[in-house]
């Protein structure tokens, strides 16, 4: 049995609809990419003439350079702290039953439903009250709170997929609980830990709302610097920066896929 070569009008309409939807998904990226090459200092589409100069400006603009490094520092600290804290909680929630267990779980996942500006504002008020400056620790703290639920869920799901009999087998072979953790549990959790860290890092690096509240001129991250820039200038520098963003992210994901297998990192593959 073979499919008829001639498609019905309904099937053609379906294909067209899918194409239109995919087009819409890609549209902002396409528009921004083209705009980035506009020679004129205006955000107009389509451009009259083309140039690379906004890329040069995006890469050399001081606030962006600083924001980028600030973002990396905050992201590295926040996702690492969130990974350690989140794994600890996930292990506890998975392994033990205790009173207030569901309360603890709800508390840990609550940043998912609390708006980011609420967390930012809350920390801002708190830091003012405690006369703590808006330094890196405050920004990192805000990011840890925000990304913790994602790490927790990622590790928790990996733990649930982990066959408990592997740990039992290890202990029957004479391994102490500590040895079981380091030779069996943790190595098998690596994909979950990596994907949890990666999710946290992506969220943290792109986080804007809460960061706007808790950062200052010296601690502002790239998204905040971009926001400040767009309030002052309306040239294609941001569009150029966006293109760099897209290219770098795509490059990183390609590399990750090459070396680790993306399915494994994103935890969608079973093994």
């Amino acid at each position, binding site marked *: 049995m073979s499919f008829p070569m001639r498609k019905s009008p309904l099937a053609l309409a379906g294909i067209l609809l899918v194409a239109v939807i995919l087009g819409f998904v890609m549209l902002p990226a396409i528009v921004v990419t083209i705009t980035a090459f506009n020679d004129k200092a205006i955000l107009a589409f389509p451009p009259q003439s083309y140039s690379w100069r906004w890329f040069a400006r995006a890469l050399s603009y001081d606030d962006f350079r600083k924001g980028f490094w600030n973002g990396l520092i905050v992201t590295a600290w926040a996702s690492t702290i969130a990974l350690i804290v989140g794994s600890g909680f996930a292990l506890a929630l998975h392994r033990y039953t205790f009173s207030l267990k569901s309360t603890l779980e709800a508390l840990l996942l609550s940043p998912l439903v609390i708006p980011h500006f609420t967390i930012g504002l809350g920390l801002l008020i708190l830091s003012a009250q405690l006369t703590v400056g808006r330094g890196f620790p405050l920004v990192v703290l805000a990011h840890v709170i925000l990304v913790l639920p994602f790490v927790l869920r990622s590790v928790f799901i990996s733990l649930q997929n982990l066959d408990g009999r592997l740990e039992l*087998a290890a202990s*029957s072979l004479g391994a102490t609980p500590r040895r079981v953790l380091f030779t069996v549990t943790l190595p098998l959790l690596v994909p979950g830990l990596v994907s949890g860290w990666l999710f946290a890092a992506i969220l943290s690096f792109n986080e804007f709302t809460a960061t706007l509240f808790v950062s200052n001129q010296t601690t502002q991250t790239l998204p905040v610097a971009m926001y400040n820039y767009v309030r002052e200038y309306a040239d294609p520098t941001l569009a150029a920066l966006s293109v760099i963003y897209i290219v770098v992210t795509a490059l990183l994901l390609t590399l990750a896929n090459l070396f680790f297998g993306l399915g494994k990192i994103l935890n969608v593959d079973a093994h």
Partner: protein
Amino acid sequence: MLTRTDIATPAPSLSTAKPVVQLDGVTKRFGDAIALHEAWLKIAPGECMTLLGPSGCGKTTLLNLIAGFLDADGGEIFIDGALVTETPAHKREIGIVFQNYALFPHMTVANNIAYGLKTRGVEAGEIKRRVDEALALVKLNGFGDRKPRQLSGGQQQRVALARALVIRPKVLLLDEPFSALDKNLRASMQIELKEIQQRLGVTTVFVTHDQGEALSMSDRIAVMSAGRIRQIAAPQDIYCRPQDRFVASFIGDASVLSGKLLAVTDAVAQVAVGSLSVEVPAASLAGLAAGADVDLFVRPEHLVPVDGDGDATAPSLAGTVRTQVFQGGHVDLYIDLGDHAAQPVLLRSSAALAPSKWKAGDVVRVRPISADLVAFPKQDD
């Protein structure tokens, strides 16, 4: 001290040897549910003891208690004479093979097998020697560098067995090890495991819900149901002299005939079914008076047809053939005995007898021939 196990264990050679595993009234609860009720058990050195029962009977709970994966709520557990009730699993020196083998997926076959040796701090050269020896034992020479996922189910099971045996465990625990294998492989693995077990003389506790497996693998079987050990005995004793109704109906096929108790002496009871009269052990009918209704359990191979022209004078029961099922080596006849049995009884006959001899609807006369008949008080269900 006399325990229940002494009473339940008829083989003197086994009960006199110092037990490798001993359970004294071990109880386990999960919340309000009693998963295991006062289990008494002694397993002799080198013995293969099977825990047999339907799912939820407590056999896996019992295994996990011996392994130290669960804490007992009552009673004491001894391994090799030492009290281990409170000892954590990693200090009990037991080997275990799980149903899904539980091989470490991130380690090679060799490292899986070496795991228990490394935890014991065995030096590298010795580890290599013993891993190679273990691989040879399970006929997997040269497979050391593979990862578990590159192996078939049967090969994975061999690795799991090698990993459990290489530490020279005091007890080998097998948790339904064959249920994930296909039928042909299962039979050959059973024979192989039995050979290895006997060659090494390792004391083994084997958990299964498959009675065929239990009968073929074990030195003794502990039949369990609803958290209790019903009977501990050698396979042929379990089959021929079941102690209670559950054991009689769970192990092997059995037909139930409705009988009446005629007379009871100390050891033997007379039971009548129609014009037949048979002798059964009196122990299982304790407390019943003559005239009571009893259920007589008959194995399919213990029921024979009575030829019309032959021994026609011997007492027999008349029935109608309901179904005839050709099974290759034998023929199963389901015979309706009217008032003598609530369900059609099963008669198993050699296939050499012409399969066309009986047809559905034929009238046939049958009688039990074995001395191994048992009867229990009638149960209304």
